[in-house]
Structure formats: structure tokens, C-alpha cells
């Protein structure tokens, strides 16, 4: 039930799971930028190799990575087709009366596809190995300099973690309401798309009302436990940079240097 919603995190133990969420966030963010600097076979091979090491180190089943590719397969196919048809430079590879495919078209299509795949692999690595609450903590810590410009970093993180806390609760409640409406004769399965979407209105409205009630109860409970905002709070969860995290950043520096050398 919960696995549907608490997206992606795979709760196993691996070297990547144990890394500091901040280090992972920075690494993946920089890597996503670096991908756009690769421009030849060598540099893409290097990045694919790094991605593959990541997959192995995460100890997450490669099948799950393949499954996450399903989300972008249409984007890949569409852009590939687009480049094959509309790029018109370089040698002609293949010619029919209605369609001519050029060498440059194939090259562009391949580059875009590999880019998409790489983006997805690195993003999945972060999501698979970092629990949502660690991710929230990491983001809170990384965003904390924004406090200087009055950005409500603590409130933002608190909001995220409360949302995470209530996702399973609300999911169970949705289930309950659907059953209750079915018992009263509601029909969620037949009719066209419009009718089926409309059938969910009697589910959403009670859900919304009960969410407001929950929010009010929770706010009262938080106040009763002495919550007065982020000022003067201490934290149980602490993030600490270990040697592994430094290793991760150093490895990124090496990959980036190698890539720029390959680019020439």
C-alpha cells in the first residue's frame, strides 16, 4: 500500500545509502549539469561507466532502474524520431522517396537518448538510496543559507516532513472513503473518462474536509508540545560528513576533469 506512494526509496543497506544526503544531492545536481558538457563517444562512455558503477554500488536491482526508464521511454522515442526526420546535414545514410536519414541525425538522436538515460540513472540513484526524510533534512541544511534572505527554510522542511508523515494516513483514508461510497452504490469503473473522473468528486471532498480537520488537530497538538517555530530548536537528527562523502566529491572532481580533457 505505502510503496505505491512513498515513491522510490528502496530501504536496503549499501555504501550509497549510508552517504550524507547533502553530499548525494550536490553530487547528483553537479552530475546532471556535467552530462550536458559531454559531446563525444569517449565522454559519454565515461559517464555511462560512472552510472553503471553507481548502480552496482547501490545494490538496488538493475530491473528497478530499467523500470524507471519506462517513464521516459516515450520522450526518448519521440526526440529520436524527431532528430532522424528533421536533421538534414552530413552524409546521407539511408534514402527513400519520402524520408531521408542523414548521419548527423543519427548522431543527434543517439546523443539525446543517452543524455535522457543518464539523467534518469543519476536521478534514480539519488531517489532509490535516500529516504524522503533524509532528503528533507539534506535540503533543509543545503538551503539554510537562504535564511539570510528571509526564505522560510525551517517551515519548508517541516511542511515536507509532515506531508511525508501523512501520505500513508491519507492514502488509507482514501481507500476507506472509496469503499464507503461503493457501499452506497457509487460506480468508479464504468463509463467514459469524464464520468470516471467525475465519480471521484464524492471521494475528494470528504478527503479534503477531513484533511482540514487533521491539520487543525495537528497544529493544536504541535502547539501543546511547545512548538513555536524554528527559533531556539535543537535537532535529534544530525548530518555529518564522513570520509565516504569526501571520497564521493573527489570522485566527481576526477570524472569532471577527465570529461573536460576528453572534450578537447
Amino acid at each position: 500500500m505505502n510503496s505505491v506512494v512513498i515513491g522510490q526509496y528502496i530501504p536496503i543497506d549499501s555504501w550509497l545509502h549510508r552517504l550524507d544526503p547533502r553530499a548525494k544531492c550536490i553530487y547528483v545536481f553537479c552530475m546532471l549539469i556535467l552530462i550536458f558538457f559531454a559531446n563525444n563517444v569517449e565522454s559519454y562512455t565515461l559517464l555511462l561507466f560512472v552510472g553503471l558503477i553507481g548502480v552496482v554500488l547501490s545494490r538496488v536491482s538493475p530491473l528497478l532502474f530499467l523500470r524507471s526508464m519506462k517513464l521516459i521511454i516515450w520522450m526518448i522515442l519521440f526526440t529520436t524520431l524527431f532528430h532522424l526526420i528533421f536533421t538534414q546535414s552530413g552524409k546521407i545514410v539511408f534514402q527513400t522517396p519520402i524520408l531521408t536519414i542523414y548521419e548527423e541525425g543519427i548522431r543527434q538522436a543517439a546523443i539525446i537518448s543517452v543524455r535522457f538515460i543518464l539523467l534518469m540513472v543519476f536521478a534514480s540513484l539519488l531517489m532509490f538510496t535516500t529516504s524522503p526524510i533524509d532528503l528533507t533534512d539534506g535540503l533543509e541544511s543545503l538551503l539554510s543559507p537562504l535564511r539570510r534572505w528571509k526564505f522560510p527554510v525551517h517551515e519548508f522542511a517541516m511542511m515536507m516532513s509532515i506531508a511525508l508523515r501523512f501520505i500513508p494516513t491519507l492514502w488509507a483514508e482514501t481507500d476507506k472513503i472509496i469503499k464507503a461510497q461503493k457501499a452506497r452504490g457509487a460506480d468508479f469503473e464504468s463509463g467514459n473518462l469524464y464520468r470516471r473522473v467525475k465519480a471521484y468528486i464524492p471521494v475528494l471532498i470528504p478527503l479534503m474536509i477531513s484533511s482540514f480537520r487533521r491539520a487543525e488537530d495537528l497544529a493544536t497538538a504541535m502547539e501543546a508540545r511547545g512548538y513555536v517555530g524554528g527559533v531556539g530548536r535543537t535537532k535529534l537528527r544530525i548530518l555529518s560528513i564522513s570520509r565516504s562523502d569526501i571520497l564521493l566529491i573527489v570522485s566527481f572532481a576526477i570524472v569532471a576533469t577527465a570529461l573536460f580533457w576528453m572534450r578537447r
Partner: protein
Amino acid sequence: MKHLKSLIELSGVWFDYHPDRQMKEQWALQDINLTIQSGEYVVVMGPNGSGKSTFARLLNGLFIPTEGEVRVGDFSTSNDLGRFHIRRKVGMVFQNPDNQIVATTVRDDVAFGLENLGVPREEMIPRIKRSLEEVGLVGFENREPAHLSGGQKQRLAIAGVFAMNPEVIVFDESTSMLDPQGRQEVRELMKELHQQGRTVIHITHSAQEAFLAERVIVIAHHRLQLDCPSRDLYNQSNLLERWGLEVPLPIRLRALLKERGVELNEPIGNSDEMVDQIWRYLSKT
């Protein structure tokens, strides 16, 4: 009797959510005067809509009296600084077990109150451990709240309050949404907290729970109607009915026996004494 000192004091308290829109005779709570001593175990009973939950929220400054004053120790709920200290002294466990858990794991939730108080991390860790031991949730540290039963969630809420080491714990209908087993678990915890010397205030609409306490307060029609030791309740069955409260079986039995001409004259404090007296009565005849 151990020496008691007055801990919570309500003097001339009137309260309403919209005092300017309502006649004073219709306010949610009217003219409450009450003292609760340190170490007492008090049940506050009342029918639905009587204002008993409102009363609970006056005790830790979630609501502030429209007139009059609530004092806890040396602080008044009417000023900000006082409220912050009072929240530390008066913990509160609410009715809905789901809606009072803030964090995504058991450990983090117990920490929440401590984090608010600014307790240093080194001190937090043993206090969390101690609290989970107290409520019997050791081994559940990394569980998600969604995977706990109702009774376990309520015990977690108690652990969160216990960690803050309050002098008073207010239970606002905390047993009403639980199954019988969960209810029993929570009642036992209340008893234990009381035996440790904490003041326990239990808000309930179940008259049966009144006998768990030493002192019973009845709030009905927005006013304080009765304030007596719980064993005196046996002689008040007609009053309970008048306020729309369910009368516990032993009390009803005694009243019905009286109608039939069976007089149990000795004072009765709980159902065991009741059984004793019936046996004695039977062996006499």
C-alpha cells in the same frame, strides 16, 4: 494523606470562542473556580458539548480565559512567557491517535517536544530511550506511525509527552477512539504515571472511567456541577442521569436494589466492595 500543594488554579474563569457575539449565559464555560493539587488523579466528566474539552485546553494555555485567570504553579496562561513554561509543565494527550503524531518515525516523534524545548541532543537520546521504555515501545524506534495500532499510537503520544517530563498530564478523551485492548493499555499507563507522583487529569464522557480516579469533576451545561471524591459518586446516580451521563453498572445496580427494598447501607467505593456487600447481604438472608 500525603501533603499536597496547589498546582493548577482556575479563578472566576469564563470562556467563549466568540464572546462578543454570544450572550454571557451561553458562553462555552461559565464561572469555573477550581484548584487541583500536585499528585492528584482527577477525572473530568461531562456529556458531549458540555465544554469539557474546552476546559482541558484552558489548562495549558491553548485557550486563554475571556475572563478570570488560569494559573499553573507560578505562571499564568494569560501571558506569552507564562504559556511557554506552562507547556513544559502540562503535557496533553489528545483524542485522535493519528492527528497528534508529527514525525515520520517513532523516535523522531518522541524527540519533537524535546527539540521544541531546545534540549541538547546528548540529553535527548537517553530521555527518548527512557520514554519508550516507559510506554513499552522499545524496538519500535524506526517504525513509521502508520504501521502502529491505535493503542500503540496513543502510547507513542504519551511517550512524546513523558519525554518532556511534565508535572501534569491531561488526557483529552484519549481512550475514546481505541479498541478495548488499547483502552486498557492507556488506562494502565495513566495509573502508572499517577503512581510516579504526576498529576493526571483525564477528560472523558465515560462514567465508568471515573472510578479509576480519586476525584471526579462533572462539567455539564457549561458549568462545574459536581466536584467530589469518586467513591461519593455511588450516592449520586440520579444526578448523573440528569446531566445526560451514562451511569456505571454498579451505581445503577445499587439504585435498582434500593427500589426493590434491598438497602446496602455501607458506603461503596468500587465494584469489588459492591460485590462484597451483596455477598454479605445474601448470607444474612
